[in-house]
């Protein structure tokens, strides 16, 4: 019976396959000989399916959220100098964003941006 208490503590994570190999082996061995715990596993699996289904029906995060996130992390440009082309070029710029004023230098190589440096001066320093 004390085995059943321990096994039932673990059974939710057994149902999702997230136990360690040793714990999983222990639960499997116990289930082979315990009908009560097999019933508990069946009920847990049903609950898992219900929860998964419920969460999948929740709304998705709107795309507008990405725009707000990226605007916040980029900040507002206050100065920028570009030389070269899209394929090979350099950018030196500065932005204002919440918490600091980063000055950055990027290199463009074959259309890919590579950050060379980013120095952030904290506001109020």
């Amino acid at each position, binding site marked *: 019976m004390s085995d059943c208490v321990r096994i039932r*503590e673990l059974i939710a*994570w057994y149902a999702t396959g997230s136990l360690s190999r040793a714990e999983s082996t222990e639960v499997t061995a116990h289930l082979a000989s315990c009908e009560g715990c097999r019933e508990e596993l069946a009920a847990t699996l049903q609950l898992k399916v219900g*929860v998964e289904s*419920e*969460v999948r029906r929740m*709304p998705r*995060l709107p795309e507008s*959220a990405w725009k707000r996130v990226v605007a916040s*992390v980029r900040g507002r440009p206050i100065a920028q100098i570009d030389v070269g082309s899209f394929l090979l070029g350099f950018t030196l710029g500065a932005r204002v964003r919440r918490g600091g004023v980063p000055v950055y230098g990027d290199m463009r190589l074959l259309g890919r*941006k590579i950050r060379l440096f980013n120095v952030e001066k904290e506001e109020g320093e």
Partner: protein
Amino acid sequence: MLSDQQLVRRVAAEDEDAFRDLYDRYADRVFRYGLTLLRNRHLAEEAAQEAMIAVWKSARRFEGRSKVSTWVFGIARNKALDLIRREKRGDRVPDVSLVTPDPAPTLRKQELVQHALGELPESQREVVFLTFYEGLSYGEISGILGIPEGTVKSRMFHAKRRLAEVLS
């Protein structure tokens, strides 16, 4: 395809393409975790945005000792709890329409699950979400919530018992 850890390393170097990839992998999951905790769509959206901004800002401090998912959900939880603290609990109106209604009339069982989950205290609801939807181990959940593993197991035990009572 880059692993989560590789993406975070690139985000730490301010690679916006990598951040978009990481955002695509996590923002929606973080939003749903927020919905589970806050039961309010607008607050959950705000929490998800703040969490992803914090991921960008703190990527340089991620040392790779935990899984990226554990780290991201930990940040998301802190942001959701900050919002709960900011909002007066009594003033928040829970969204009753968190899920899209399904026209099929045979969804009685699903409605029961929705009702049963809504009845759980948030401390139990998040353990149920992180276990059954995110597939996290009790050790990982313990790390996200900052509570002992035994407490995670105990919350799951009580949640299952309450769910069984409501669903029976």
